[in-house]
């Protein structure tokens, strides 16, 4: 069987697309940090990307069916680690998402995404009926809900929310009765106001408010959105040039090499650059979807589609935030934002897609 897992079958197009996005990301990280304390961020990112390639290769090698078989263990490990992180984890930026030594931190929640993808895929594959029943929704919701809640407690609402599209996408594919969907919408509509006032913390509420009306709070969360829109708009059609964007270089943009990297990119590369990068993301997503379509079995399909839904969500929320069309949630732009955990996790997700692709002819 190993004959089929040849180098030729590897999804080279997907790798080229991802690498191209990474390269532009590194360029932008360099531009945004070259005269700051983070000026070494770009080569650190290069190292993380190279490590990502290796992680991708490793994830490709182990048959995804084997991984699916280990879901209970992986799930248990994830929940335990999240709890451990919550209890002992280091505090960074007022939240506890990191674990590790002082020089290298790993953000556990990033890797939990992989487990959620596998979990959803396995659960849905093992369904006995073609219809997705309410009891399944509750069970799956509970399974996904536990780690989600733990991440939310860190507190990292943004990352916690990224677990949702994996589940929602999967349930949609598995086929849920529209009545259930309607019921969920109604329940969510009722719960949302309660959640807004009870669950959300002040700064999160502020983010929602400033999303709805940035000018109401120009000094707080709204400030970030306003500055980001100014940066994007100032970029105009052709951009202001690498290291030439005053919004980026003058630090008017918050974290221009991390969450707001696309804003910085839009300022320095303009609308044309934006179209190029969004085009690359679109092709990457379509390539993943294509791999889902050619997956040998349901579990492979679910894995690919879960990953596609996850990445689409990331792009939508992060890029939408940059142009003020989404609230500020603080989730990174995959493959572009500076940060090791996210880079590793995304490459491992792409490795999973490849894993499925390489096994499309075998059972």
């Amino acid at each position, binding site marked *: 069987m190993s004959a089929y897992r040849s180098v030729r079958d590897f999804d080279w197009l997907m790798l080229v697309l991802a690498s191209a996005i990474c390269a532009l990301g590194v360029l932008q990280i360099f531009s945004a940090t070259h005269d700051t304390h983070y000026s070494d961020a770009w080569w650190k990112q290069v190292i993380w990307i190279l490590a990502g390639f290796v992680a991708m290769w490793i994830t490709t090698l182990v048959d995804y069916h084997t991984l699916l078989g280990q879901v209970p263990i992986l799930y248990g490990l994830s929940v335990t680690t999240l709890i451990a992180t919550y209890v002992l984890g280091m505090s960074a930026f007022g939240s506890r998402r990191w674990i590790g030594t002082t020089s290298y931190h790993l953000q556990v929640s990033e890797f939990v995404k992989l487990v959620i993808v596998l979990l959803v895929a396995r659960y849905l594959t093992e369904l006995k009926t073609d219809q997705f029943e309410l009891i399944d929704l509750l069970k799956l919701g509970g399974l996904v809900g536990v780690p989600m809640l733990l991440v939310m407690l860190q507190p990292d609402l943004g990352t916690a929310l990224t677990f949702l599209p994996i589940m929602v996408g999967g349930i949609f594919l598995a086929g849920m009765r529209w009545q259930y969907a309607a019921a969920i919408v109604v329940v969510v509509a009722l719960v949302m106001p309660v959640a807004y006032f009870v669950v959300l913390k002040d700064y999160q509420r502020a983010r929602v408010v400033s999303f709805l009306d940035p000018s109401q709070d120009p000094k707080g969360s709204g400030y970030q959105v306003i500055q980001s829109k100014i940066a994007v708009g100032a*970029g105009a059609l052709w951009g202001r040039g690498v290291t030439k964007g005053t919004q980026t270089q003058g630090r008017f943009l918050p974290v221009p090499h991390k969450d707001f990297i696309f804003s910085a990119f839009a300022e320095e590369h303009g609308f044309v650059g934006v179209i190029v990068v969004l085009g690359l993301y679109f092709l990457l997503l379509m390539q993943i*979807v294509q791999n*889902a379509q050619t997956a040998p079995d349901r579990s492979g399909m679910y894995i690919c589609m879960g990953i596609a839904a996850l990445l689409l969500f990331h792009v939508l929320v992060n890029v939408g935030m940059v*142009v003020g069309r989404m609230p500020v949630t603080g989730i990174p732009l995959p493959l572009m934002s500076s940060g090791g955990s996210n880079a590793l996790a995304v490459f491992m997700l792409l490795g999973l897609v490849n894993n499925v692709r390489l096994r499309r002819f075998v*059972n």
Partner: protein
Amino acid sequence: MKLHADREEHRLSVSGLLRDDTTFASGKIAFFQYVTVGVFLFLITGFWELQVRNPEVYQERAMQNSIKAIPVLAPRGKILDRDGRVIVDNHSSFSLFLSRENLKMEHLKPIAEGLNIDYDSLVARVRRFQTRGAPQYQPIAIKEELTPAELAFVESHKDADTFPELEVIHVQHRLYPRDGLAAHVIGYVGEVSEVELNTPEFARFRQGDVIGKDGIEREYNDLLMGVDGQRRVEVDSFGNERRVLAEDKEAVPGKSLQLTLDLDLQAVAELTMENRRGAVVALDPRTGEVLAMVSRPAFDPNLFAGRIRTKDWKDLIDNPDHPLMNRAIQAQQAPGSTFKPIVALAGLETGAIDENFHVNCGGGASFYGRFFKCWSRHGGVELHRGLVQSCDTFFYNVGNRMNIDDIAHYAEMVGYGHKTGIDLPHEADGVVPSTKWKIRNFREKWYPGETISVSIGQGATTVTPLQMAAAIGGMAIGGVWNQPHLVREGARLIPARHGELNQENIKKVISGMYGVVNEGGTGVRARLPGINVAGKTGTAQLASNEVLKGTKIGQTMKDNAWFVGFAPVENPEIAVATLFEGGQHGQLAAPIVRDVMKAYFDKKARLAQPHEQIASLPAPLPGSLLRPTAAVAPARAGASKP
């Protein structure tokens, strides 16, 4: 195609396992693709809106964010003494400005609180800039001489997130000598006021300009004041400069100004007047150069170097001794007996008397039905003794032999009754009464009895200390009056006035003045060993003394003491006049003039023997007003040593 065949085969082989068929989801996967297209279109329209539809709006706002116009304040020129020693210097400090491009009114409150500025006056100030239509790029100075704590507050709040309008600018502030040395001559600077901006003299300035408000600072403002420059810089969100975009205008520093004042002499003159009210003026009658000019009480011009605090200003204004008044040019007081040499000169010139004109003084005389007292009983008195003993009876008679307009003619000739034209603002005219003056001011004719009072320097006659030094000095050099001035080069001088006087008559008057000091006259305390000093004392009742005699107004009503002198008699180089308000008797003013002259001639002697060590300066004369330390006059002026 072999692969494809394999796949078909594979699918057939597992057709039994329907549960693993993925085709059921193909429609939903296609739906997901449409959703993806939708998401990307949604995002792209967001960028289209910002980057293609109206990027100008955002480019403009990015510029507002990052570009600041920063004024480069030109330092004012230094003020030096005649030897080039620095009197007024600048020192570096930090001033806080509000940049008006990103000024938000609602920020004023926290800024005022953080920096301990009065909120209401801050708001008023900002409004004033807005209503006066000052250019938008011109920032508003709100606090000078920032302390480290205030600087720290600004540094931690000037980021784009908090108060981006805060702008710290490095400025040169005026540093004036301590203890009010030469304060009235130098004046002070301050921000141009609202009222001033509406007057033609100041119309050319802009709101916020720091200009000379008084003294030399005002008179030579255009020379001393540089031209402010401006540059545009790119800043980051913390308000730190990233780079200079353009030097829009270079700052042109003000020029230095060399005064005629001699710091050594000035310091001595200041000391002689310590704890006294009055003025001292020393000048070189040959050129009109003012060597020292003191007015006491003085003020500290450093209070004005930033923006003067309301309390300090109120204290100065409310002080009954009027410390802001430059008595040397503004105190208009009856000259008393110092006027007698002029009356004597007028008498000789008009032929009303000659040097042998003789009067018997029995303690006064009656004129026009009224008895005029003399301060003593002098017996037989002619001109010389009349001056030496300052006999009032003698001069009543001299005045009585003349017309008031004759006296006025000579008084005006020596420079009384009109400004000397010195290069200082607000100089007073003084009063030389005459028939014309009486009609113009009182619509009354002149009564001959009034002439009697005028002839001893009372009545309506008033002069300033500067006028007196200039008048007597000019007479001493033979009747040539040079315009007194304070700068070595560039003063607008009118040519010297030459009086048409008989030199013999002048000599007779000078001889009398020599006697005042050297022949046991009233001015004996002005004697200097080795130098021939001539002078005249004066004890003047306050102009309104007669009226107020019954009422009690305390010390301010005490007689003023005057002394005016010059030396050396043979070839006068220096004339000194002093007004010692409430000094009671001119004899007490004489030592002031003596000390100043002594300092002048001591310095001259020192300079003549440059190789000799000046280890021990001559001990102060007995009864000197100067404390021993004063002998080291230059050290006293140490605040502004070069």
